[in-house]
């Protein structure tokens, strides 16, 4: 088996992501799919740092750094500016973390989706505010350790389902993808590029630093997340047509996904069982929506 991915790179090495960064890898793949004619909008997130300190820059296409809550509205504005200039072949992509999407940026994103502004919004989700010191976000899963939800009192709220929120906006395209399936990721970005309107891509992007995990497990942990149905790969068009892209033949227990991560090392058997139950519940719900039995 060989992954067929575009060979040309639109990023420079020397970026300052941690070793084994899922976010850095995701950007590399996204740019491979979108190509040179792209403008990237980055609010406050890991990527504000990864792109390099002034006067350095790691992406070949231009990047517009903006404030935390403005990823979507800045992209809308840039797209409008390009339209006025008649430059219609340029893809605008917002590239925000889970904090900038699920918490701080959600109103701007919801507004842009309501107007169906023509850009791709990417949430690379590492399930906490990693850049500022691993504080919990609304993307942090139930039971996880962060510096603000210590092991004695781990996070007691479930993860906010941002993809379903965006699907509820009836945007033309919303998809989930992850690192272990580069062909799937490339395909979804290419598809998003070809559609007019607001596109939302949710990338499950591990953070070895914040997840207290060996950096070489960057890809493996994504594979486990998909195979255990913790993070199913699916896409939805116009809020109605669901497609599940990868249905595990026999899902692996969530414990296998949780075990390599230090942020879950305090979990008791009962807590793991609870996570398994909620994963099963969500998976059944998704299958119902997609009409898969």
């Amino acid at each position, binding site marked *: 088996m060989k992954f067929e991915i575009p060979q040309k790179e639109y990023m420079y090495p020397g970026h300052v992501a941690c070793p084994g960064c899922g976010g850095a890898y995701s950007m590399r793949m996204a740019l491979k799919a979108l190509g040179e004619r792209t403008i990237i909008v980055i609010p406050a997130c890991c990527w504000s740092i990864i792109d390099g300190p002034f006067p*350095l*820059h790691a992406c070949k296409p231009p*990047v517009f750094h903006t404030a935390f809550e403005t990823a979507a509205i800045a992209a809308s504005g840039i797209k409008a500016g390009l339209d006025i200039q008649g430059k219609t072949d340029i893809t605008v992509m917002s590239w925000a973390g889970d904090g900038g999407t699920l918490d701080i940026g959600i109103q701007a994103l919801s507004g842009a989706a309501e107007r169906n502004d023509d850009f791709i919004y990417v949430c690379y989700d590492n399930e906490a505010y990693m850049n500022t010191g691993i504080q919990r976000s609304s993307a942090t899963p139930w039971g996880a350790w962060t510096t603000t939800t210590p092991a004695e009192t781990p996070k007691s709220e479930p993860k906010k389902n941002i993809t379903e929120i965006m699907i509820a906006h009836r945007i033309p395209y919303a998809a989930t993808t992850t690192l272990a399936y580069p062909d799937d990721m490339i395909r979804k970005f290419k598809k998003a590029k070809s559609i007019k309107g607001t596109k939302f891509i949710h990338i499950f992007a591990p953070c070895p630093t914040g997840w207290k995990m060996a950096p*070489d497990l960057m890809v493996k942990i994504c594979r486990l997340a998909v195979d255990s149905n913790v993070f199913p790969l699916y896409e939805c068009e116009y809020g109605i047509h669901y497609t599940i892209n990868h249905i595990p033949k026999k899902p692996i227990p969530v414990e296998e996904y949780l075990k390599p991560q230090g942020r879950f090392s305090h979990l008791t058997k009962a807590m793991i069982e609870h996570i398994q139950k909620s994963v099963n519940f969500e998976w059944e719900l998704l299958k119902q929506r997609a009409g898969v039995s």
Partner: protein
Amino acid sequence: MKWLDFETIPKVILEREPDYPPWAVSLTNTLVNRTGSWRIFRPKYFDKTPPCNDACPAHEKIQGYMELVKQKKFLEGYELIIEDNPFPSITGRVCFHPCEASCNRGEYDESLGIHNVERFLGDYGLKRAKAKKSAAHISKQIAIIGSGPAGLTCAYYLAKSGYKVIVYEHFSLPGGMLRVGIPAYRLPKDILNKEIRKLEVLGVKFKTNFTLGKDIFLDDLKQTNDAVFIATGAHKSRNLGVPEEKTRGVYSGLEFLAQINSGKRPRIGKEILVIGGGNTAVDAARSALRLGILPKILYRRTRHEMPAVAEEVQEAENEGIPIHFLVAPVKVIKSKGRITRLECQKMKLGKPDESGRRRPVPIKGSNFRIKCDSVICAIGEQIDLSVLTDDIATTGWSISADDWGRTNLPNIFAGGDCVTGPKMVVDAIAAGKRTALAIDSYFTSREIKEEPNPEITLFSNLNIGYFELAQKVTMPGLNVKERKRNFREVHLGYNELMVYKEADRCFSCGVCNKCDNCFVFCPDLAVMKSDDKYDFDYDYCKGCGVCAYECPRNAISMEEEEAR
């Protein structure tokens, strides 16, 4: 108070100053950031040995030719095999394929049909490969005694290196045990003839009907040749060691096979008992079946201890030959000078013996008699040491030689069954190859090349997330009815489509096959890809180890960086 030192501001900023924008904008890229200095562990491309290559006594580059077959480069695949084994069309048929037992795929779904692929390439090469012509340019002559697999292999590699080689053979045609011991339904004679023809084209001279100790003598050969390789094999059948075994109707398995394999029909009865559990016993029984007689095999241990190739035992049973386990002969009963019954004894398994197999122990009072008119005795072969000269050191039952065939005498080499006792064809081929290297080294003082890298890739080293289940391609063959009363080859071989499909199942354990995973998954763009290889860009590699972990086949190693 600190003042800004304008000299330290990068030149690029100063140059751009006239149109310097009013907000912060990047002026250059991150290539100036040598993130390689963060690294604690360094990835390195380092091919390991696949378990199949290691398990093969001849160390065939199995993974290598599987890759070539995947690219449909059959001729190159053939050329790669004959670097280590000159007769793939023979071993592809008769080898007990230890490679397949060690195949990592066996722990995943089903081990690869390596010998089937080998056989295809061997046959393909025999048909298509351009024959190498005689190239004797070294004025050294080597005499090889015995034209079995060890002798032929040694002759091939020496002739290929440019030596003059003369092979002496006791029988009227060369081939040794390959010709007289292995029936045609396993190894058709025309395949053997073609392989021998390959050697003749290469310039090897065969002198048949020469028996050591009768027509030729070791002392003379020593005088007239620069080196001698003794590869006489083990042709003396072991005796049953029971009373009255010299009775009419008791045959040796090897003689029985030799007669059939030379095209004669041995005079034999209707109720045959074959004694033994090795290849000779199974071959004799299946040959008898092809003469229209249904024999019985008696073996004193159980199936688990049988030294015969497991598939051959299975085929014998498929053909309807009954095998009685835990039975040993104790006495031949005769009437009018001919055998009428064999008295046997039931056995049970005791403690393991020096071969590691459990020793059979007789059960007292369990004697019984089986009616028969012939007994084929195939309980093993011995080495005939009486033909040697006294100055060659022996172990008492075999010739003493090291792993490279070197005996106590400088220009006398020995290898194959006459050193190791009866073993498999591929063991003899390996011995022949190693001896050829040792003889070459004896003349040229060239160092003998090392054996493969001892670091072997095990199943636990693989990243099986990248492999899909795939069924082994079944070998087409004759059904049991079609095998009766003829010696047609039982297995018919793969075609091009089948061989491609089967080779495609190979994991390529431990050896990079350009799957691109390291290049695809590097988050730091530190894998540089060129047409024929990958390289790490250590200026930027942060040493996260994703490439090594995601390598499906363990071809990347992580090494700790040295402190600087």
